[in-house]
């Protein structure tokens, strides 16, 4: 009878590599997507809150940019890759809605130490609507 010694090891390596590597890759992509989703929701929330307390539309714009940059950098993401859209009512009317939407593209093909290649990506979005403060002092 032919010896089967060592065959189990071969099976384990082949099957393990075929099945486990894609699963580990999937987990790392999920972790990236989760981290980015947390970052954009935090950025949108902070940006909306700060803009709602700003004294003018110009100050609100600066507050949005700063809040998004801080939130994304705090989550280890590159703020320059984010898309930020925000809107405020004409005249930055008290009680009006400031809406902020932050989007970030998460590449789904990446390799350790090499980074991502030009690849499909998943867009994650965070949106927040805040009410402009009714009583705070305003710039003339």
């Amino acid at each position, binding site marked *: 009878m032919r010896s*089967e010694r060592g*065959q*189990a090891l071969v*099976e*384990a390596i082949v*099957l*393990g590599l075929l*099945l*486990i590597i894609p*699963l580990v890759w*999937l*987990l790392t992509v*999920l972790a990236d*997507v*989760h981290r980015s*989703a*947390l970052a954009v*929701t935090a950025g*949108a*929330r902070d940006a*909306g809150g700060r803009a709602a307390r700003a004294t003018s539309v110009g100050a609100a714009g600066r507050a949005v940019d700063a809040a998004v940059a801080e939130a994304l950098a705090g989550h280890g993401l590159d703020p320059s890759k984010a898309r930020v859209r925000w809107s405020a009512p004409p005249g930055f009317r008290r*009680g009006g*809605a400031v809406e902020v939407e932050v989007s970030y593209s998460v590449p789904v093909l990446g390799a350790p130490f090499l980074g991502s290649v030009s690849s499909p990506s998943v867009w994650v979005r965070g949106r*927040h*609507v*805040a*009410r402009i*403060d*009714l*009583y*705070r*002092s305003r710039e003339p």
Partner: protein
Amino acid sequence: MSERGQVTVFVAGMTLVVLAVVGVAVDATRAFLFRRTLQNAADASALAGASEIDRALYYGADRVELAEGSAVRAARDWLATRAVGADAAISIEGDEVEVVLRGSIPSTFLGVVGIGELTVAAEARAAPIAGAP
């Protein structure tokens, strides 16, 4: 007796376990992100409500108190702008506006074990205070 193929069964079993973990992770992440969405909406709604103060009392007696009717209305109107897809309960508790949101999302993988949807809730309270922070 030949043991050929036993490792295949073992690896297949392990793969099922790992897939189950991935599935739970995906659904837990979705539920967590949905809860954050609800929390953000609840916070914004409570803050919008808390900015409705009794102006006659404020300008007449320099006292800051919530105008309860308009506070609830403002909080509700604010939620309507978000369309977060959740049931809302808005009430006045003392001098605070309380907003509780409860919503569900369909599960992605947990449906396999009979959990068709995940229910999450978020609560926020806000009160008007005098003076600029």
